[in-house]
């Protein structure tokens, strides 16, 4: 192959490339050129389009059983998605991320109002410190804990006292409380993972409670990022997978009060790293029934679950009942606080 082909020679080579009529050495050379030179790539893909059109002109219906066979085979080869983080690791990661963020704040940041709350940033961290005390009590790690059903009002007197302290002291109280929970769980102290505890008006297993705490920690960290003009942060795929899977798993019970049986043929597809495909019912039971598929980005969905995006503002697509989609997205934030 001429190492310095003129344009006509290059076009000849690209035509042969598009037809897959180069020898392996030449093909590799043209592959590299196409990858590195946008002008060459444009011409190459134009020719490849023509070859594809030739291909398309040769339509031939495959055997009727082939589609089923492909899907069956695909079912036996599940995609390699991110492994879900264990709940305690998930919580630890979100605690670390918030601690890093708080470490970077400027003195003026602490007095900013942390939307969507009336608290300042310092007040929001004080709220988290109080909730860690409340959580520790649920796990049998704390005796002197605030009580109450209202997540936002619980420990108001403690928050007021913390607001009179320097920000660093508030951060210390929150961080040490959160880390104590993680350390205790990792050491095997506290109740078993499947023990059900009452978190305000809800009942969660201990494992679920850790996920909920991780979710809230991430959400408030993003609240602080928004307030202080920082870019939002996306957790690792494995962490997202744990949170998104848990959130989706709650949908059938949340929807049971709104539209029983509505999710019998429902599927939620969360795209992006950390997402997944979730069948909320068993489509095989009622394959002829009206099917419903909601598709959205996993991070956007988590923001919706956290109540930071309204259903109508979420970028999603739906196959099936669009009203059902809005209902589902509405109840998805039931645990948002």
């Amino acid at each position, binding site marked *: 192959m001429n190492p310095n082909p003129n344009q*006509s020679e290059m076009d000849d080579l690209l*035509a042969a490339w598009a037809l*897959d009529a180069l020898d392996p050495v030449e093909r590799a050379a043209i592959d590299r050129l196409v990858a590195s030179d946008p002008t060459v790539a444009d011409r190459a893909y134009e020719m490849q389009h023509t070859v594809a059109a030739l291909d398309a002109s040769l339509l*031939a219906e495959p055997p009727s059983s082939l589609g089923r066979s492909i899907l069956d085979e695909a079912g036996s080869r*599940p*995609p390699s998605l991110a492994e879900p983080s264990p709940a305690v690791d998930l919580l630890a990661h979100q605690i670390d991320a918030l601690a890093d963020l708080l470490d970077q704040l400027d003195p003026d940041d602490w007095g900013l109002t942390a939307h969507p709350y009336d608290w300042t940033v310092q007040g929001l961290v004080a709220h988290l410190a109080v909730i860690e005390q409340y959580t520790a009590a649920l796990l049998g790690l704390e005796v002197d804990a605030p009580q109450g059903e209202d997540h936002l009002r619980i420990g108001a007197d403690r928050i007021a006292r913390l607001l009179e302290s320097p920000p660093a002291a508030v951060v210390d109280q929150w961080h040490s409380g959160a880390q104590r929970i993680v350390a205790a769980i990792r050491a095997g102290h506290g109740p078993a993972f499947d023990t059900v505890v009452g978190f305000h008006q809800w009942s969660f297993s201990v494992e679920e409670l850790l996920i909920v705490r991780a979710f809230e920690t991430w959400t408030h960290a993003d609240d602080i990022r928004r307030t202080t003009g920082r870019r939002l942060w996306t957790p690792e795929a494995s962490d997202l997978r744990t949170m998104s899977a848990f959130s989706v798993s709650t949908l059938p019970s949340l929807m049971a009060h709104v539209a029983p049986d509505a999710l019998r043929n429902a599927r939620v597809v969360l795209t992006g790293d950390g997402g997944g495909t979730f069948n909320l019912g068993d489509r095989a039971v009622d394959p002829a029934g009206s099917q419903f598929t909601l598709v959205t980005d996993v991070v956007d969905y988590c923001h919706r679950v956290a109540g930071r995006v309204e259903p109508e503002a979420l970028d999603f697509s739906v196959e099936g009942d669009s009203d059902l989609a809005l209902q589902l997205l509405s109840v998805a934030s039931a645990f948002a606080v």
Partner: protein
Amino acid sequence: MIARIRVGDDEALSAVYERYGSVVHGVATQLLGPGDAPDVTQEVFLSLWERPDAFDPERAGLKTYLAVRARGRCLDRLRSAARRVRREVRVTESTHASSTHEYATQVEDAAVAGIAAEHLREALSRLPDDQRVAVQLAYLEGLTYQQVAASMGAPEGTTKSRLRLGLARLGRELSDWNLVTAGEPT
């Protein structure tokens, strides 16, 4: 659809198959005949399922990508079979001069007989003879341009030009029939 396939949504794979299965199977039938075409079709769609990130929507639409993959798999099989034939020829000291060409010709006979693509045949028939033969040997039989040149007794440079001119003319013809589209859904 690719974003959905990436997270294991087999219904998205099914939708892509419904849309492009006949394209992939058509390419495979054309190049290999109806016997092996289903295997290649399955390989192409399972490859999409297992390695969806290999598809780059910046480079080509999904139809083009799948057709290219199908062609690649078919040509791999043809070349592998041709190598096998060559080995057998050497062992038996056969006098066949060009087993690759003969094998591919058999493939073409089987494949072309089954083509329902009047458009393509028409377009091919309108090409000048030297361009038509060159494109047929490269496209339908999977020969490299060096093999095409040897088969036609023409210089390699001339052969490459014939391929380019033939492809360009086919592109214009197919474009007239709206078979070449710029913006495919991905």
